[in-house]
């Protein structure tokens, strides 16, 4: 009951808010399903991300936060007030150059420690103090923002050839595990070709990276803090349409979400629906409709981690239901759904009652005025459920 009213409140709020700005583009393709109504503070996703980075900067004095327009608070307000709080040496703007940001971010904690090793004891003590962050893990050094996922491609070389391979190629002498990229992604209603892309599959083909996508504020905060601590280079793709639209009661204290682990958001026995980011909310709504209209029990899984991904949870669910639908905004061909589908086919062959179905963006660039026809919306997902059940 609480959930329903929260959703209602949210969509009303969104409607009112967005009506003020873009009357023509108001209808969003999803209804937000909050994870839980916990005991935290009411935050939208950009508040939660801001809170996460605040905690990270506070906890680890070596942590830096930078990117284009990060200084004044970011174009999505994620870093608002952080420069005032932590100083312009730690929270700062970079020149407008994604490959520069990516290259810059790779300079890492281990190097930094290494350079201090040579120096005298007193300095080592200062540095240890400087870096001591409670846990024995590597901790934060750099949080870089790429303004839109669509603009991450100039840094593709630095991420794929450098960041991802740093530890491997040096035989462990060097690594850049303490870097985290924050990258707004996904459809936003009117973003067209270069403010809507979901490029997770490009990076999923790169051993050495972690790629995660939150579905809302609670998850975003937990994933960002986990990525900052994780000893591997991480990319957090943040569905930007959720920055304001998603509101949850987010715990204010420090916590992390487990990386590489999928969340089962709704249990069911007939069909497994897998998605991530905003699409999870589409699938949750579809599952509700399927139940009420057709009495089909859908299991909804938020994959959360694209690389490495939770094969165990996915296969367990696929074996239970025997029917799987994967939905993502990115184009179909070579989208991450292909990887899931082929893996499920290989590992769960005898349990499958129907071919694994992918509902995705079309194999076109992301269009402007045609966005409602491009999206893997609830109607396309629902009709896929009908197809797969009646196979």
């Amino acid at each position: 009951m609480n959930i329903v009213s929260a959703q209602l409140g949210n969509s009303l709020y969104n409607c009112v808010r967005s009506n003020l700005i873009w009357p023509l583009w108001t209808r969003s393709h999803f209804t937000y399903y909050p994870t839980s109504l916990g005991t935290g503070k009411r935050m939208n996703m950009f508040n939660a991300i801001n809170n996460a980075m605040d905690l990270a900067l506070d906890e680890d004095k070596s942590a830096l936060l930078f990117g284009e327009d990060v200084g004044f608070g970011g174009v999505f307000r994620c870093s608002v007030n952080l420069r005032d709080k932590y100083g312009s040496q730690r929270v700062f703007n970079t020149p407008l150059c994604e490959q520069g940001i990516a290259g810059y971010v790779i300079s890492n904690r281990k190097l930094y420690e290494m350079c201090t090793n040579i120096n005298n004891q007193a300095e080592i003590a200062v540095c240890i103090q400087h870096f001591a962050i409670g846990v024995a893990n590597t901790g934060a050094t750099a949080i870089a923002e790429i303004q839109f996922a669509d603009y991450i491609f100039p840094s593709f070389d630095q991420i794929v050839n450098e960041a991802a391979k740093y530890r491997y190629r040096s035989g462990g002498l060097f690594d850049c595990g303490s870097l985290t990229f924050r990258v707004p992604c996904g459809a936003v209603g009117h973003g067209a070709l270069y403010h809507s892309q979901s490029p997770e599959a490009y990076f999923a083909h790169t051993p050495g990276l972690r790629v995660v996508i939150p579905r809302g504020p609670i998850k975003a905060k937990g994933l960002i803090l986990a990525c900052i601590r994780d000893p591997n280079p991480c990319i957090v793709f943040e569905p930007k349409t959720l920055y304001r639209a998603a509101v949850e009661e987010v715990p204010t204290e420090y916590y992390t979400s487990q990386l590489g682990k999928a969340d089962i958001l709704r249990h069911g026995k007939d069909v497994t629906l897998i998605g991530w980011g905003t699409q999870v909310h589409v699938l949750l709504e579809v599952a509700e409709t399927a139940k009420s209209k057709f009495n089909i029990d859908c299991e909804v899984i938020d994959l959360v981690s694209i690389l490495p991904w939770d094969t165990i949870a996915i296969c367990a669910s696929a074996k239970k239901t025997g029917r799987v639908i994967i939905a993502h905004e990115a184009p179909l061909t070579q989208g991450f759904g292909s990887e899931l589908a082929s893996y499920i086919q290989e590992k769960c062959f005898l349990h499958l009652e129907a071919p694994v179905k992918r509902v995705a963006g079309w194999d076109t660039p992301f269009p402007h005025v045609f966005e409602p026809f491009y999206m893997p919306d609830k109607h396309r997902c629902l009709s896929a459920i009908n197809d797969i059940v009646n196979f």
Partner: protein
Amino acid sequence: MSFLRKSVNLMGSVARRQQHLKVIGGATAARDFSSKPSDDYANFPGAKAPFVSKLNLIQPEDYAPIPIYRVMDQDGYIADESQDPQLGREVVEKMFRDMVLLNTMDKILYESQRQGRISFYMTNFGEEASHIGSAAALEMRDLIYGQYREAGVLVWRGFRIDQFIDQCYGNTDDLGRGKQMPVHYGSRELNFVTISSPLSTQMPQAVGAAYAMKLRPDNDACVVCYFGEGAASEGDAHAAFNFAATLGCPTILFCRNNGFAISTPSHEQYKGDGIAGRGPMGYGITTIRVDGTDVFAVYNAMKAAREYVLKENKPVVFEALAYRVGHHSTSDDSTAYRPAEEIEIWNSVEHPISKLKRYMVHKGWFDETVENEYVKDIRKKVLKQIAVSEKKLKPNWREMFEGVYAEMPDHLIEQRSELEKHIEAHKEHYPLKNFEK
């Protein structure tokens, strides 16, 4: 609001006043401006400059090329005694020996690649002075990022012959665990970041590392990033120059301009005044250009550059001009695109080792027999090490799966066991005897 406007006005008047002084001070400046320059000073946020009322296209030729600093002439004489670094005999001898060591090792490893004993090699011929001169002016705590033709820096820092050769063989004693091609050296101990093949990617990384260093209390270490003039055409080079300048990073961006990027001569690489020409006007970076075949010039300039970057927390663009005497790599025959006679000049009169040798002769520090003994000794050591390194086992093949992530994820554990089973069943098709068990 009113406060803001007031401060803008204030800034404007300060700027006008400064401009006025400049115009009075400089005759060239005065020629370009009208008689009342102080009223013509622009207030655009993007640039601080005077207005002019005559159209004037700024031509590259309007600027004199940045001169090349040198200390020692072709014959090994110091031209200006005030520029003599006054290095003791011991230091000069180490410089000379390290250059000779590198040169000798290069010759043998090059040959061994020709014989198919290692898969690939890149020599450092003609650029020994840039490596040794710059490395000698640095402290061990300074962090080095290289491109791939900076082995001399490692020699100076104490990387051993066996470490070089083990890396080329990718055997079990290779610090990089056999994962990269030959000459992709790295050493944590010596503060030398592992080389990677993609050009220029190390440049913005070095800038980032320098920024992190700057934030340390009482920092007294800088970052040096080596790259070729070809690599300077990459986007990452632009990123690095600009980030280093805007973010104030104590880093020396050291360009080895050796005239060629594989077959591409530098006149097809850029039209400006080399790489140094981009520094002061282009990115607002303090710049030095030196004769890279003169070890003392490189040394002096690096000393000054190091002092500057640490004092100012600003970068330096450093261009060392030399000539790539050797082929680009063992996969290249450079006589296909340049005359042999040209190479010969740079390999004899203009060669950095010959120049230093002449200097030592004048000083009475050079002994032919000692040198011959030294070269012979190095040859012996290198040849012996090749024999040892090539017999060493390669690391266990399972290491292929290690280091992708800090901890091995489930899917890699699964893939490793899949390969284990496969190899168990098809042992005869794999070179298992060469790998550690």
